[in-house]
């Protein structure tokens, strides 16, 4: 055990009558990667956001580097050695990479009130090189990069030589494999320099691999602490899940069967489809079949999903469903195709809108009678889905932005189930979703298959692709590189070699 860096004693946090944290004690020492796990709403992010100065605590004490710790803002926390990388996107659009990296610190490069951008770009390049990020340069405008690259910039911004504790809050969800490697390298580097990392993630694999100590939370209370040996033991996953959920959810996480059968009827057909980042893509998706598509983030699989929904231009080839050409989202929905976007908050959900609105958004034309939409019918349709998917909310009137990630994702599923979609294209369906909800999602997807629905599952998580798909297509450089059929023996390492 190294020297204690941060000590949290008897911390409580209340939002009105709701208790978010209850007498939490936590100790972070030098040289450890301290994992925090728990379902959404269990209090993981609440602890770290208080420690990073984003919100005040209700009661309790914090000691950081031997002194009373009461940061009033993220900036103050960062200046004193506690940095946090957030879940949400947090870069400034319209600026260069360097301007984003040094946001708030331009003065270091300023002379007579003018910022020396050359000097700043050079310094930015040095930092990027240090992180092993070579495809971005300081002078590049930030807008030309995708969500993932922007996330990397945030990471680079958060960490400097002064950083003693780095909080990584569900950051990996936004990153592909390459991005994760960069983050992992950074975490390793922190440990090498005898600093500490607080690591929050829903991905159990990386938690188990990276953490040296693990604290499990449920309902704002600490339910267990696992040391390194316990983490590395064989039963650790089961133990952790049990601590998180409060009950034994068993081994049956993905589909139990290994039957890759499906109906004969083709539901959605891609024939020789080419377009942006996709070359000569062929696929026949059948009713009652789950086809998984995997690959690295730039391999073109996300574009395939959008093409299937008519939201991406096709240069050559055809996407057809039931004899109809699909070239717009309207045609897609008319042919009972649904699409669950990877970018949930921007493309799938109206965050500033009620659960009812979101669930019924695609079905309004169906429930309107001579132009009239009965509010009762609408509420009923939404209520059915809320009950069916067990969306945790007070009522359908509640706004979606007040829901947890898992429940948000359930709402975007519900939209297409309510619509009665026969073909569902899902891009990263369990992204940012905690384990309990994840299991429910897999059950749901399996059930949809059993009902004869056709499912195209695009994912960055190999385990779920292998665990759920009847057929697994791997893409590399805009093309299909390999197709696997469902089998018990298929392992991640078999698949990875076709991805890279």
């Amino acid at each position, binding site marked *: 055990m190294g020297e204690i860096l941060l000590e949290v004693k008897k911390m409580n946090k209340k939002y009105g009558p709701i208790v*978010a944290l209850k007498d939490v004690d936590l100790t972070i020492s030098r040289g450890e990667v301290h994992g925090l796990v728990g379902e959404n709403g269990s209090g993981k992010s609440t602890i770290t956001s208080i420690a990073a100065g984003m919100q005040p605590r209700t009661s309790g004490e914090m000691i950081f580097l031997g002194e009373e710790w009461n940061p009033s803002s993220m900036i103050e926390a960062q200046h004193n050695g506690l940095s946090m990388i957030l879940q949400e996107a947090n870069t400034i659009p319209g600026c260069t990479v360097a301007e984003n990296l040094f946001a708030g610190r331009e003065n270091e490069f300023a002379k007579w009130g003018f910022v020396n951008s050359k000097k700043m770009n050079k310094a930015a390049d040095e930092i990027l090189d240090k992180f092993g990020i070579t495809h971005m340069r300081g002078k590049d405008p930030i807008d030309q990069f995708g969500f993932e690259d922007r996330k990397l910039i945030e990471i680079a911004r958060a960490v400097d030589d002064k950083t003693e504790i780095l909080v990584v809050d569900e950051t990996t969800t936004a990153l592909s494999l390459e991005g994760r490697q960069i983050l992992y390298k950074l975490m390793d580097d922190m440990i090498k320099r005898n600093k500490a990392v607080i690591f929050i993630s829903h991905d159990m694999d990386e938690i188990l691999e990276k953490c040296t100590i693990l604290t499990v939370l449920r309902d704002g209370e600490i339910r267990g602490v696992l040391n390194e040996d316990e983490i590395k033991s064989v039963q650790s996953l089961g133990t952790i899940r049990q601590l998180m959920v409060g009950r034994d959810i068993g081994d049956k996480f993905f589909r139990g069967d290994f039957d890759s059968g499906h109906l004969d009827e083709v539901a959605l057909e891609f024939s020789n489809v080419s377009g942006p980042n996709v070359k000569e893509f062929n696929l026949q998706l059948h009713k009652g079949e789950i086809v998984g598509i995997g690959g690295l983030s730039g391999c073109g699989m996300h574009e395939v999903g959008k093409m299937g929904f008519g939201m991406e231009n096709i240069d050559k080839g055809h996407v057809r469903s039931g004899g109809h050409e699909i070239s717009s989202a309207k045609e897609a929905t008319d042919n009972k195709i649904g699409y669950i976007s990877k970018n949930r908050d921007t493309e799938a959900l109206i965050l*500033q809108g009620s659960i009812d609105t979101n669930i019924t958004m695609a079905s309004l034309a169906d429930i309107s009678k001579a132009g009239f939409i009965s509010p009762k019918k609408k509420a009923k349709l939404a209520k059915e889905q809320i009950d069916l998917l067990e969306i945790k909310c007070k009522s359908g009137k509640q706004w979606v932005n007040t829901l947890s990630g898992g429940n948000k994702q359930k709402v975007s599923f519900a939209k297409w189930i309510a619509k009665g979609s026969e073909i569902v294209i899902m891009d990263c369906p369990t992204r940012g979703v905690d384990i309990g909800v994840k299991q429910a999602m897999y059950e749901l997807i399996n059930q949809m298959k059993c009902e004869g629905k056709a499912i195209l599952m695009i994912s960055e998580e190999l385990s779920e692709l292998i665990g759920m798909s009847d057929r697994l297509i791997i893409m590399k450089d805009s093309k299909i590189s390999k197709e696997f059929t469902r089998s018990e023996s298929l392992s991640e390492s078999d698949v990875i070699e076709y991805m890279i």
Partner: protein
Amino acid sequence: MKKHVSMVRFSEHISDILSYGGLVLCIVVFSILSQGRLFNAYNIKILVQAVCVYAIMAMGAIFIYSMGYMDISVGSQVGVYCILCIVVTNKTGSLLAGFLTILALSLICGLINGYVAVMLGLPSIVTSIFLMSIFGGAQLLIMEKLAINSISIEYDMTFFKSTEFMIFVIVVIALISIYLYNYTQLGEYVKSIGANELATSYSGVKTVKWKVLAYVFFGICVAVGAFMLTARTGSAGQGTGTGYAMDIMVALLLGGMPLSGGMKSKMSSSLIGSFTYVILSNGLNLAGVKVEYSYVIKAVVFLAVILVTCRKKDGVLPR
């Protein structure tokens, strides 16, 4: 962050309460200061007359503002419609012909406002500036051609300027608007376009079509509003209509309409806002408030409403 629910709900209601509260406060304060004159029969009548045009146009405008757009061409559109309505009616002797002319014109404007903006990928404010200039120019040209300052209608408008008819029109437009806004796809989609256009189109909604329809309905309301304005004053000139775009925006804001549109938009904002706007100036006049002070008071009331209804989203990292 996840358990802000109760606070978020509470602050949601503040804007509701305030939009009603502003109206209630105006009524209470001014009925005292005017020694009850606010409620005498004559004053109620003139309130309705003054509200009529604002309310009709504001109800149409709600559809546009819900999408987070605005239309600043209303004023010059109104001017041209009023003049044309009078010219055509005087020429043909048929008021119906006059009304149909401006109705047709307003539909075309709706199409331009909706389609051109989408097709050329322009922000809607650009097309509305374009229309404003065109109509402003047209207004000047027509009046120059007529070679007079102001033109009067020769048709007997007694029936159309009666308060009863005005109430009738307000009620009809209100019923249609409420129906369209709360019980049809149009209403749902304009709100969701304002809240998240991308997610709306990812739900299989042809946003262009609904945008155009929203502008078309607004156009109809503007035409009806212009007709009522013509009926009320019986004349129009080069300056007629000036300021209406701003008046409607202010009225909507007073009614608690968020400028960014979205799901918080409510149809009631148009009626509450129009009444608040009219009662504010009527009440100040009834109370005998000096002109200098009335500006200050209007500004203060306006600011107070805006402060609460158009709050910024809470940022994560203060920079």
